[in-house]
């Protein structure tokens, strides 16, 4: 029973050994880039740019509120290196997709067997809301807390990562089964 499985797996394993898997190569490069970032200007972090963007909007449309809200005052101006980092992410994504002549699907599903585009946009919107809201409660996201935080060996990074993977895995596993009564 086990023999066919092993022989079927063997070529795939041999192939994996020959070519460096992307996660290995880019993981090393990303790690070195993260260290370089700490030397050059500071640890990477993305989620703070969202409220700073909100602050910039308030400063245009309701400057009095922008000055009265302690959180917007605390987060400060949008003209920070972090904002440029986010602009860089956009450019990097564009170059990455172009370099490999890849056309990213306009819409990808996180629920198994789902094809409803409108529901996908709804999920992405709610997901987007929760990641930024959650990240702002914690004071950082995947980049600021998990990558930069754990790189600097900060306790907060380990706590945040534990929380993220606990509910992340639970949510993804729950969504895996197509819901009863909903055609796949």
């Amino acid at each position, binding site marked *: 029973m086990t023999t066919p499985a092993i022989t079927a797996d063997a070529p795939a394993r041999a192939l994996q050994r020959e070519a460096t898997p992307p996660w290995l190569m880019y993981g090393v490069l*990303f790690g070195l880039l993260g260290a370089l970032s700490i030397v050059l200007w500071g640890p990477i972090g993305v989620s703070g740019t969202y409220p700073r963007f909100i602050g910039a909007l308030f400063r245009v449309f309701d400057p009095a509120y922008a000055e009265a809200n302690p959180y917007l005052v605390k987060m400060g101006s949008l003209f920070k290196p972090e904002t440029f980092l986010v602009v860089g992410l956009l450019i990097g994504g564009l170059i990455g997709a172009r370099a490999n002549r890849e056309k990213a699907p306009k819409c990808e599903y996180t629920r198994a067997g789902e094809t409803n585009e409108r529901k996908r946009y709804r999920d992405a919107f709610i997901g987007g809301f929760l990641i930024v809201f959650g990240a702002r409660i914690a004071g950082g996201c995947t980049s600021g807390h998990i990558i930069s935080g754990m790189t*600097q060996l900060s306790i907060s990074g380990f706590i945040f990562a534990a929380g993220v993977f606990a509910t992340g895995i639970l949510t993804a596993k729950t*969504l*895996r089964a197509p819901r009863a009564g909903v055609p796949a």
Partner: protein
Amino acid sequence: MTASIFALLIGVGMGFFIQRVKASSPAMIARNLRLENLSVIKFMALTIAVGSVATYLIAQFAPGAMHFDIKPAYVVGVLVGGLVFGVGFGLGGYCPGTCVVGIGEGRRDAWAAILGGVFGALVFTLVYTVAIAPLVKLVDLGKLTLPEVLHLPSLGVAIAMGVAFMVVLKLLPTEVKKA
């Protein structure tokens, strides 16, 4: 100004790497969180392992050059924030940075995620004083690091964590068979 240029260039590199390992693909994130494929989790763990050793190695020789920024460990807020984040991560398949990369790639659902994120930041800003500020600072351990807790040198802890991560990476399969 110089810092902003460095940040921009580092962002371009990060965005490129994230795109190449498919960390900006919600379907790939969903597979990773279902533990069917571990490539993105491995990418993150390796990034941390290499980054930590490199950072504290450089700090050993040029401590004055480092721009460390340790975030405070206010245990309740950080944990609750992580739990909320995880639900959004599992549902949408994006994090605040990868949806920006996704827009660069031409993903349309990334726009929905970023709009949700901007709306989330707005609501957070509005409720901060009333609902967030009193809650999050409970059990604040301050800017605490693992080497401080263990009373061990930072570089040693970084190397130990790096080696431990790499052993686990080596042992775990990347493509896990579906149950």
